[in-house]
């Protein structure tokens, strides 16, 4: 009989598939910010399906993770560039994107092979996404921004932003402690940690789904 941890780990794909399919269907009705973010969700769906196929074929699917981290972050930073475009110079955002791309490629070539888990890149990605999501929260608290932005769009973006923040802050801790747990404790404890990580992944996709669901129904832009 399967344990709860195993069920959770197996169920992780479901919210990705549901949210990805929903994003695919609603893509045409979305505003520019949500369209960019939907690209990220659809890309995640493609990676998820590909990794499952490779897993069934008993192939190492970790190279997909390296691609996912790099391309995924570019979509994420593009999304934040859209959300924050009136408040931050595009150069700042794209400089972060270019630097991260260089770092990820260098990391995959010299430090963490594409057949291993790329914790360095994931850690840096988590830090950057946390910074951007916290800054976006603070920005949306500003009265001027509140008064000038469509509230249904803010609500939708807040759900997505919350999903990213919840998942990447938990991931940061997981990536940070997973090696330590393997070295000092047991594999079982490490598995529990990854189960918790999967729960946060599910929470993230639920937040994304709600964010897309609460999208502005009347397009402004």
């Amino acid at each position, binding site marked *: 009989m399967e344990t709860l941890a195993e069920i959770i780990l197996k169920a992780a794909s479901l919210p990705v598939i549901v949210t990805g399919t929903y994003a695919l269907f609603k893509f045409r009705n979305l505003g520019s910010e949500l369209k960019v973010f939907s690209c990220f969700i659809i890309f995640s769906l493609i990676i998820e399906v590909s990794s499952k196929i490779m897993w069934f074929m008993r192939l190492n699917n970790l190279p997909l993770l390296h691609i996912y981290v790099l391309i995924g972050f570019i979509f994420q930073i593009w999304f934040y560039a859209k959300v924050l475009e009136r*408040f931050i110079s595009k150069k700042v955002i794209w400089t972060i994107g270019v630097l991260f791309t260089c770092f990820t490629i260098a990391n995959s070539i010299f430090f963490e092979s594409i057949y291993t888990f790329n914790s360095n890149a994931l850690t840096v990605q988590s830090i950057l996404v946390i910074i951007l999501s916290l800054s976006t929260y603070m920005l949306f608290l500003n009265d001027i921004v509140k008064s000038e932005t469509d509230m249904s769009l803010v609500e939708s973006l807040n759900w997505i932003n919350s999903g990213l923040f919840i998942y990447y802050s938990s991931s940061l801790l997981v990536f940070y402690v997973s090696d330590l747990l393997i*070295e000092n404790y047991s594999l079982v404890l490490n598995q529990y940690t990854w189960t918790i990580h999967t729960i946060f992944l599910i929470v993230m996709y639920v937040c994304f789904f709600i964010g897309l669901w609460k999208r502005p129904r009347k397009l402004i832009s």
Partner: protein
Amino acid sequence: METTQEIDFLNILLPLLGVIFIIAISVFLLNQHFQKNLYQQKLEREELRNKHQKQLLQSNIEAQESERKRIAKDLHDELGATLSIARMHLMRLEQMHPSLESKGLSLSNVRSIIDSSIASVRQISHHLMPNQLEAFGLIRSLESMIDQINESKQIKIELNVPPSPTKFSWEKELSLYRIFMELIQNTLKHSKATKVEINYREDWENVYIEFKDNGVGLPNEMIHGLGLKNMEARIKAIGGSIEFIEGDGFTAQLKAPIENSNG
């Protein structure tokens, strides 16, 4: 004794604290950047709104002035001319039929009524659009107006102007002229003043005008009245400011840029 199971918490926590510190600093800096941009956007919007309001005010005043000009012209050219023709016919009638006077028809009375009507039309027309202002400029027009008022001996107006004051654009001169008219009219109507002092000085950037009377000051209803608001609107439209000071008498201090800042 240290075992492999023991974890050096300092070694684990320090990098984590470092990461949290980096996140906190970055969020703080980004937030500062947002605030700066927001403040800048707010300033730009305010500036745009002020510019728009100023343009509205200006076009309002321009429309008002052009309407005044049209009425003044119509009064002078049409009514004035009609009255002059009537006067001419009357004079011819007087010359051709001197007996009419003796029959009790007082043509000279009618003529004097027409004369006074012509004078009134001229005065109203001049009041609506002072031709003098266009021909001789603000200071000469003011001097002429002040001379006329001083002739009445009820009040003494003193105008102190530097030897060669700057000549402004027509719009600016007209605005200042209208403000002076309003100020003088208020003093004559409400202040019971016997003396008015107008001090005019300028530097490289601005002209400063002080209007001071020794009257009882303005009545309460005047302080929030249309006259003062009109003056404020006019001076604002030319990029200047006006301040009303109540003390011994009534004082108004005007400041207007010499350069055309209407943009």
